[in-house]
C-alpha cells in the first residue's frame, strides 16, 4: 500500500525539542498499513540462527481501529477506545523458524514430554522472562497471552502489555526476552522515543 511506503522521517514537518507537528494524515486503512510496515520502526526483527523473533509495538490508535473491525466509529468513541488502550503499552512477540511447516512448538523435539513442557512454559512461565527496560528501570510484563496456533501457522504469537504508568514516555524502551523456549538466550528489541511517539495522524473526515 502506498501509504505504508511513506517513511517515518517524512511524517514530521517541524520537530523541535518539545513540539512535534505531525503533518501526514492517513485514513484508517492506510494508517493500519503504515503501522504494520516494518521500515516504519514499530516492527523490529531479531534473527538468531534459524529463528526469527519479531516485536511489534501496537499504538493505541491502531488497537482502537482494529477493535472496530472495519465499522466506522464516531470520533468520540474512537477517542474513548484510544484512551482505554493507552493505559498499557501493547506489543506482539512472534517467534518463527525458517522454512518450517507445522507447529513451531514441535520443532526439534527430543520427546513428547518436551512438547508438553514447551506448552506449559508458553502458557504459564514465559511471562517472567519478558521485561521492559526504560530509563534504567526494569518493568515486568503485566499482561501476557499465548496465542496458540496448533498446525495452522508455523509461528507462535504472544500478546504482551506493560503498565503505561510505569513508563517514562520521553525515554527509549528496550523489550528484553530471555528465550528459554528454544534456549537462544537474551533477545532485545530497542525502541527510540521517535519510534513510538511519532505517528501519522488519523484523518478524521472519513469517520
Amino acid at each position: 500500500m502506498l501509504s505504508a511506503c511513506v517513511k517515518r522521517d517524512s511524517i514530521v514537518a517541524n520537530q523541535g525539542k518539545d513540539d512535534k507537528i505531525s503533518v501526514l494524515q492517513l485514513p484508517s486503512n492506510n494508517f493500519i498499513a503504515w503501522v504494520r510496515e516494518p521500515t516504519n520502526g514499530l516492527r523490529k526483527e531479531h534473527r538468531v540462527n534459524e529463528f526469527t523473533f519479531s516485536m511489534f509495538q501496537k499504538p493505541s490508535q491502531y488497537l482502537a481501529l482494529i477493535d472496530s473491525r472495519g465499522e466506522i466509529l464516531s470520533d468520540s468513541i474512537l477517542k474513548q477506545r484510544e484512551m482505554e488502550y493507552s493505559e498499557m503499552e501493547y506489543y506482539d512477540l512472534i517467534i518463527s523458524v525458517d522454512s518450517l511447516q507445522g507447529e513451531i512448538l514441535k520443532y526439534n523435539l527430543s520427546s513428547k514430554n518436551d512438547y508438553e513442557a514447551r506448552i506449559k512454559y508458553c502458557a504459564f512461565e514465559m511471562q517472567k522472562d519478558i521485561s521492559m527496560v526504560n530509563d534504567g528501570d526494569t518493568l515486568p510484563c503485566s499482561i501476557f497471552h499465548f496465542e496458540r496456533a496448533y498446525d495452522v501457522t508455523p509461528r507462535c504469537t504472544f500478546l504482551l502489555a506493560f503498565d503505561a504508568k510505569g513508563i517514562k514516555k520521553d525515554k527509549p524502551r528496550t523489550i528484553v526476552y530471555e528465550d528459554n523456549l528454544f534456549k537462544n538466550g537474551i533477545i532485545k528489541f530497542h525502541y527510540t522515543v521517535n519510534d513510538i511517539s511519532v505517528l501519522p495522524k488519523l484523518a478524521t473526515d472519513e469517520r
Partner: protein
Amino acid sequence: MLNKSKVVIIVSLMILIVSICWLFIRTENSLKVGYVKIQEVFDNFDMKKELQARLESTERGQKIHLDSLTFALQVMSDKLNAQKNPSEAEIAAFSRLKNVYLGRKKEFEEEKQKVTNEYNEQIISRMRQYINDYGREQAYTFILGDDNNGSIMYGAQEKNITPDVIQYLKQKYQGK
C-alpha cells in the same frame, strides 16, 4: 619506420597488458577480506558480560549458603571435640549436616558447569550469527577468526576489523 604488422602486434600487446592489469585490480578489489580477534570480540560482547555478571551473582548466593553450612559444621565440630564422649545422636547430626554440605557443594558445582556451558553455547552462537550478518551487510567475501592458535599467522593491521565488529555486535545485541 615500423611496418604495419609490427604496429598491430605492439598495440595488441599493450591491450593485453592493460586488460591483465585491469583484471588483476578488479579481482583484488572484489575480494573483501578482514579478520577479527575472537577473544577480544568475546570479552567485549555485552551478552557475555551480562551472563557473566548473572553467573557471578548466582555464585555469590551459593557461596553465602555454603559458608553458613561451613560455619554450622565448624560449631558442631568444636562442640564434639570439646566433649570426651559425645552422644551418638550428636555424631549422627554432624554427619547428616556434613552430607548436606557435600551434597549442596556438588550440586552447585554441577549446576555452575551446566549453566556455564549453556551460556557459552548461546554467546558463541550469537557471535557467529552477528559476525555473519556484519559480513553480509558490509559485503565481505571472508571474515577470518584469529584465535591465537595459528589460524592467522599474520594479518595487516588495516584488515583487522575487530573494533568495528565489536561496535556492530554491541548495537545488534541491544536490539538497535
